[in-house]
Structures are given as structure tokens and as C-alpha cells.
């Protein structure tokens, strides 16, 4: 299409491939649409950033009163948590040490249980029984993932707690760190297993063959070559499982008892695992009905959320740094 110059009449547009005449307006419209759509799509992707920023801003701003009114010292240093006492009169206590300890204790136990099982699943799928693994175990893992967390909590409540009640000292409900750890472990196994399996798949066949050619048994190859080679994936899977477990609220709430007293290991030994306790997420959840009416308690809960986020992000960043460092040192 050439534009007319001066007083010349514009040349008619040339026919297109199919013999149809190319319409100048249509071309321009398509180009405009192309440009507009690009920006719209960018906006769609950009909303992610907007949301992250918003989340950070709002969480921090709602948590701020903790620093000003309550003081970080008493927040992290005290274990007395009684946020709803005398609402509005400022006599509530906001020591959050107990829930923080509880979160770590529960998640640690969960990982201790989950990691061996997750690795077993990963090794099963990739090495010892790949056919059965792909056809049955992978779909089973997906079903595991799909079950809502409340249902896990509910099953824990109606099935696991009665079981634990039998081995707990009389008078106990069976709820506590052990119950929560078991429930979380089951929830987190699929995450760790899937990522570890991907890492195991990626180990080059040549390494497996090299080990076999030297006379190693299947297990020796798995233990000495495959698992170490997939170490990066396995660690990243564990960290992701850690993050998930840290953030789980309702399933834990249903089986942990929600009592803000740190169980005493020195007094009860292993029985401490069967004492009702709490975590950060549970403490946040049990204030859900008073969010509007208890500003200080709410601020403290937002602070807990901030702590939760910081712990999660820290773990993920550590893993990314470690992965980059290892990749850099390879000659």
C-alpha cells in the first residue's frame, strides 16, 4: 500500500494471497489490537507484583502496633499470651514465644517423619519399581495432595487422637506436638517426594551404569550415587515442605489442642509430645472472630504472620543461594 503523494490519486491496495483485497483499516486495527493486547497481558503479569507489594504493605502496617504498643521485647520474650483479656483496657498480654517454639517443634517433628517416607516414595518411583510407580503411585500422590487440609485435620481428630489417647497419660486428649507432627508429615510427604523424584530422574544414566559396571548392587547405586547426585533437588523439596508445614493452620488447629503453655520436656520426657500446645498459625486462627474488636490482639497476630513469612522466605532464599553457590564452584 503506498500513500498518495501531492495531488496524485492513491494507488488501490494490492490483492492478498487468496485474491481478497487487503483492507487498510483492518490492518491498522490488528496492529492496534496487538499493541493494546501486549499491554493488557503485561498488566496481567504485573498484578503479581502489585499483589506482593500490597500483601507486604498491609501485613506490616497491621503488625506495626506490635512494635509501638507492645514492644518487640515482650513479644518475643514472654510466653504469657492472653490477648483478649480486658479488651480495650490494654491489659492483654502478648508474649508470643510459645507459639513460635510450637511451630518449629511441630514442623521439625513432621519433617523427621516425612523425609524418609518421601525419599522412599521417590526412590520407588524412579528406581526400584518404575512401572508400578508411574501407574499407581504418582496418581496416588496427586490424590494425597488434593485432599483439603481441614479433612486431614478432621481425620486426625476422629482417628489419630483416640489412638494417641491410649498411650497418653490419663486425662489427656491425645492432642499435642506428636499428633500435629504426624498429620503435617502426611500432608508434606507428597511435596518432598515429587520434587525429589524429579531430581532423581535428572541424574544421568551414565552415572547409574558406571556404578553398576563396577559391581555395585542396586541399593548401593541408589545410596552412593543417585541420592547424592540429586541432593540439590531433595534439599529444595525439604525446604518447600518446611514452608508448607509452617504455614498450615486448620489441620494443625484440629489436633494440637490450642493451649498456650510450653510442654516441659524435663518434667514429662516424651510425654511432652502429648501435651496440648499451639503454633503461630493456630494462634492466629483462634483470634479470627475478634479481629475487628481487639486491635492489639489483632496487631500481635499480624506480627505472628510477619514472623511466619520471614521464616519461610529466609528458608527459600537460603536454598536458592546454596544452589547457586554449588553451581558456581563446579569447574
Amino acid at each position, binding site marked *: 500500500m503506498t500513500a498518495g503523494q501531492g495531488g496524485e490519486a492513491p494507488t488501490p491496495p494490492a490483492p492478498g494471497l487468496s485474491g481478497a483485497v487487503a483492507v487498510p483499516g483492518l490492518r491498522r486495527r490488528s496492529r492496534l489490537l496487538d499493541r493494546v493486547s501486549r499491554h*493488557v497481558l503485561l*498488566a496481567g503479569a504485573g498484578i*503479581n*507484583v502489585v499483589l506482593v507489594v500490597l500483601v507486604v504493605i498491609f501485613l506490616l502496617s497491621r503488625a506495626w502496633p506490635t512494635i509501638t504498643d507492645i514492644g518487640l521485647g515482650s513479644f518475643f520474650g514472654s510466653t504469657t499470651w492472653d490477648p483478649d483479656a480486658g479488651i480495650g483496657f490494654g491489659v492483654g498480654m502478648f508474649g508470643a514465644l510459645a507459639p513460635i517454639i510450637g511451630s518449629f517443634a511441630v514442623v521439625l517433628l513432621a519433617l523427621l517423619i516425612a523425609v524418609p517416607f518421601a525419599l522412599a516414595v521417590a526412590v520407588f518411583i524412579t528406581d526400584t519399581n518404575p512401572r508400578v510407580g508411574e501407574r499407581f503411585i504418582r496418581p496416588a500422590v496427586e*490424590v494425597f495432595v488434593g485432599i*483439603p487440609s481441614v479433612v486431614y485435620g478432621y481425620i486426625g481428630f476422629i482417628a489419630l487422637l483416640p489412638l494417641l489417647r491410649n498411650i497418653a497419660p490419663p486425662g489427656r486428649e491425645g492432642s499435642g506436638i506428636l499428633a500435629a507432627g504426624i498429620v503435617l508429615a502426611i500432608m508434606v510427604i507428597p511435596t518432598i517426594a515429587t520434587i525429589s523424584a524429579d531430581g532423581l530422574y535428572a541424574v544421568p544414566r551414565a552415572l547409574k551404569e558406571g556404578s553398576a559396571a563396577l559391581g555395585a548392587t542396586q541399593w548401593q547405586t541408589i545410596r552412593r550415587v543417585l541420592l547424592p547426585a540429586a541432593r540439590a533437588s531433595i534439599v529444595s523439596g525439604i525446604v518447600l515442605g518446611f514452608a508448607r508445614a*509452617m504455614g498450615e493452620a486448620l489441620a494443625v488447629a484440629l489436633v494440637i489442642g490450642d493451649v498456650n503453655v510450653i510442654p516441659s520436656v524435663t518434667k514429662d520426657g516424651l510425654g511432652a509430645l502429648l501435651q496440648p500446645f499451639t503454633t503461630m498459625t493456630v494462634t492466629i486462627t483462634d483470634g*479470627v472472630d475478634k479481629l475487628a474488636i481487639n486491635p492489639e490482639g489483632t496487631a500481635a497476630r499480624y506480627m505472628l504472620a510477619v514472623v511466619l513469612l520471614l521464616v*519461610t522466605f529466609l528458608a527459600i532464599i537460603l536454598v536458592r543461594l546454596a544452589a547457586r553457590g554449588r553451581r558456581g564452584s563446579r569447574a
Partner: protein
Amino acid sequence: MNRRLRRNNSIAIGVVRGMVLLLVALLVWMIVLMLSKGWSELTRGGFYTSVPNIGGPGGGIGPQLFNTIYVLVLSMLIVLPIGLAGGIFFAEYAGTGRVTNLLRRASETLATLPSIVVGLFGYAFFVQATNSHPSRLAAALSLTVINLPYVVRISEDALRALPPALREGSLGLGATRWQTVSRVLVPAALPALITGAIIAAGRVFGEAAAILFTGSNFSLTAHSNYSLNPFDSGDTLAVDLYVFRIQAEPNVVTDARQYADGVAAVLVLAVLLFNVGARLLGRAAVRRLQRTA
């Protein structure tokens, strides 16, 4: 020497297999437990239509079921277009520069947020900042925050999985980028996109923590009575299960326990259906791709 090695080998592999077997048995047992306990409720027609009646028989999950579907549809309507847009951007338009990196990092960060934190944010932003009360719209918006990274990733993967010949063919005929995307690529990726949508819907179905903070009114008895107003609050099934535990005493009142079993059974059933549905569609997607390749 060799005998010991062989024995260790057999033992170790046996242990691995045993552990996996244990997990599978656990899964089966959990599903069977839930379905069997809730069976009497599941098969009672009135269960799906009547309102809860704690302390007495004959209650149902009518309003909660309605709310769940309502919130599901609402949140899908919001998150699918935005997520698809983001996914298209990453797959077709994005470069490898700093901006793209930032966007990707943001999406990944969003994905790591625990749902309870999203719930708190949802309360602060969608409820408090707008000077309103918990509503199903707020719940749907919070669910968007949770699901957005997932939908973006699914969309991007679906588009990237398409054979480059498709793209090149369209561009080679003089189509613009947008025409290629809208007329050729998205339709071709549709099965994979639908599968992803179903999985995302499954996650919404089971989500409780975020909705608890943004859309719930914490009681089983106050309902929205099947209202269509997005600004009304309401409990979904998953929230219901949790709230119920707090409010009622399942150890004491047997009907209450039965009710909870029914709710749990419905949730488990829904998960299985979503899973099977997504899997069947996944297979159709693969077959479709092979035909266009």
C-alpha cells in the same frame, strides 16, 4: 562377602517398598474411612438441600454447598482471565530481561504465601480497607491471590508445550502476535488449560483458612439463605467442617458428629471427582496435541 551385600540390598529395597505400601494403605484407609462414615449422610437426599440442624437429626449442607459453588464460580471468573493473561505474557511476549525476572519472582513469591497469611491480608485489604464486612466477594478475591500463581504457571506451561510449528505457521501467514495467540495458540492449548482450571477449582473447593478470615461469619446457623449477593457472607464446606468443630461438641451429640462426617465425605468425594476429571481431560489434551503436531 557377596551374600551379605545381597542381603543388605534385599532388605533395603524391601524397606523402601514397605514404606510405600504403608503410605498407599494409609491413603486408601483414609478415603474409605471418610466415605463410609459419611455414607448415611451422603445417600440421604435431604442432606444436600436442607439447612444444618445441630443438636437434632436431619440437618444438611444445602447453604454451604451453595456457597461453595458460588465462591468457586466467582473466584474462577476472576482468577482465570488474569492468570491466563499472565501466562500468555510469560510464554509469548516476555523477554529475558530484568523486568520479566521481577515478574516471575513476584509470581513465585505469591505462591509461597500460606493461605492463612493470605486470609489475614484479605481481611486487612478486602474487608477492613474497604470498610465493609466479611463477604463472599472478599473470599473470592483472596482465593485469587492464592490461585493466581498457579493459573499463570499452568497457562504458561500449556502454551509452551505447543509445537513451534503452530506459531510459525500463523506468523508466516502474516498474522500479528495477538491474532496468533487468540486464534491459534489458546484454542490449541484449551484442553491443558481446562485441566489446569479444574485442578485450581479443586484447590478452591478445599480451601478454608483464607475464606475463614474473609467470607465467613463463624456460625453454622446464620446463613445467607442461598443469596446471590456477593457482598453477603457465607461459609463454604471446608470452613464449615472447621467451624463446626469449634462450635459443636462432636463427642457429645451424635447427630452433630454424623453431620461432620457427612461434610468430610462430601469433600473427599469432590476431590476424587476433580482428580479423575482432570486426569481424563489431561489425556484428551495429550491426544489433541499429538493430532496437531
